[in-house]
């Protein structure tokens, strides 16, 4: 597959947009430390993904998902994060992708689980610099344009819109009740994080639903859990926690549907079985 053809695929397109975010952040912020961090993160995720795929004797080694995971990890972690923590976060993400699976598909968005665990284990610092979290608020329209474009390309509007709508609605309700810390969520860099998360992390193709009704429930559930965590516990894992619950919900549905399909297949293979037992 040529680079041009790869860039036309959903994963290729997301990768190109994330690389654009990376370049804009580095150029506008005149800080190139993020570039080195990205090389470390992407190098770690791609190398480990290829290694595990090789060990699993997979026919096609396609580390494009690992490339996106590495980019996301790098764009969220602060650029001052020590490189061993960047590597460890990348390893956690890729191992979760291969180990925590249902119906041969990863349960959790690897980058989100890796980043969430990284905060808990290593107290890693997130800055969402790739979401323009360190840039002036005038950079937000760029994020919106890129995000809306990718959402349309991968057909995830119900998911993204339900997530953003319910998130802002819950935060609005919390602010009406004068819960103090909520004002941050409507302003940079938290609004940057919410938008980037909604457009680029929530929409991960292998771990999110395709049916519109499922997308809507998935987005709403992620939003409610995330806002509850933000309002009552604070910290910076609220978005990740919301999506982890959303992913679990989606994995449960996938598992149940697979069970139903298995039962249907069995009953079609042995149509007279019921009659025999009677």
């Amino acid at each position, binding site marked *: 597959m040529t680079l041009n053809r790869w860039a036309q695929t959903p994963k290729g397109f997301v990768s190109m947009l994330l690389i654009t975010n990376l370049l804009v952040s580095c150029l506008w912020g005149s800080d190139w430390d993020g570039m080195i961090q990205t090389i470390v993160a992407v190098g770690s995720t791609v190398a480990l993904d290829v290694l595990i795929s090789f060990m699993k004797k997979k026919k096609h080694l396609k580390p494009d998902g690992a490339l996106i995971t590495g980019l996301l990890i790098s764009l969220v972690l*602060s650029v*001052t*994060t*020590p490189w061993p*923590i960047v590597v460890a976060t990348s390893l956690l993400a890729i191992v979760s992708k291969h180990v925590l699976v249902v119906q041969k598909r990863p349960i959790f968005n690897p980058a989100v689980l890796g980043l969430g665990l990284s905060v808990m284990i*290593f*107290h*890693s*610092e997130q*800055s969402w610099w790739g979401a323009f*979290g*360190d840039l002036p608020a005038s950079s937000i329209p760029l994020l919106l344009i890129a995000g809306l474009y990718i959402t*349309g390309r991968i*057909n995830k*509007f*119900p998911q993204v*819109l339900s997530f*953003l*709508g319910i998130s*802002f*609605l819950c*935060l*609005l309700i919390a*602010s*009406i009740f*004068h819960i*103090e810390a*909520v*004002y*941050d*969520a*409507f*302003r*940079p*860099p938290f609004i940057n994080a919410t938008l980037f998360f909604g457009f680029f992390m929530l929409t991960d193709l292998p771990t999110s639903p*395709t*049916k*519109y009704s499922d997308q809507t429930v998935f987005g709403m559930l992620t939003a409610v859990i995330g806002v509850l965590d933000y309002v009552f516990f*604070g*910290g*910076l894992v609220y978005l990740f926690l919301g999506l982890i619950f959303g992913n679990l919900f989606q994995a449960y549905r996938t598992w149940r549907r697979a069970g139903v399909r298995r039962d249907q297949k069995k009953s079609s293979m042995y149509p007279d079985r019921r009659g025999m037992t009677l």
Partner: protein
Amino acid sequence: MAKMKTKWIALCSSAIAAVYSAGLFITNEDFNNTLPDIPQQSALSIPYDVATPTDSTPTYNAQPTNKYKNGTFHGTGSNRRGSIQVTVIIKNDAISEVEIGNFAMHYSERDISGLPNEVLQSQSAKVQNVSGATYSTRAFEDAVQDALDQARNG
């Protein structure tokens, strides 16, 4: 699978923008209440000593040659990730105690728990950057510097 119609996308996006704007407007007062604590207030022409004068209890018995006044001084440092308030006690022109008062960063306070001791040892607001806690370190430095600026003689 059919794609969501553009008119529905536009309608939902407008509704979300309206809810967001309402949230931004309602929380404006809470946000403005935090502004006096922000060091960048100098850019808004509010000098530091106007922002937190009532908290400081300096005593004016120091010699004019001393760099700092004796007393207890409160300083605030903040950035986009939250704010930190510190209390600095000056005795005989030396920093004798530093305490983190209100920690309102979106990170763990534990990350910078060693910084007050570092200030006591170096007798300066400048501290080593805590790896993985850059924003908290910067806010802490700003808070200590804010307190020292208030304590400064002359």
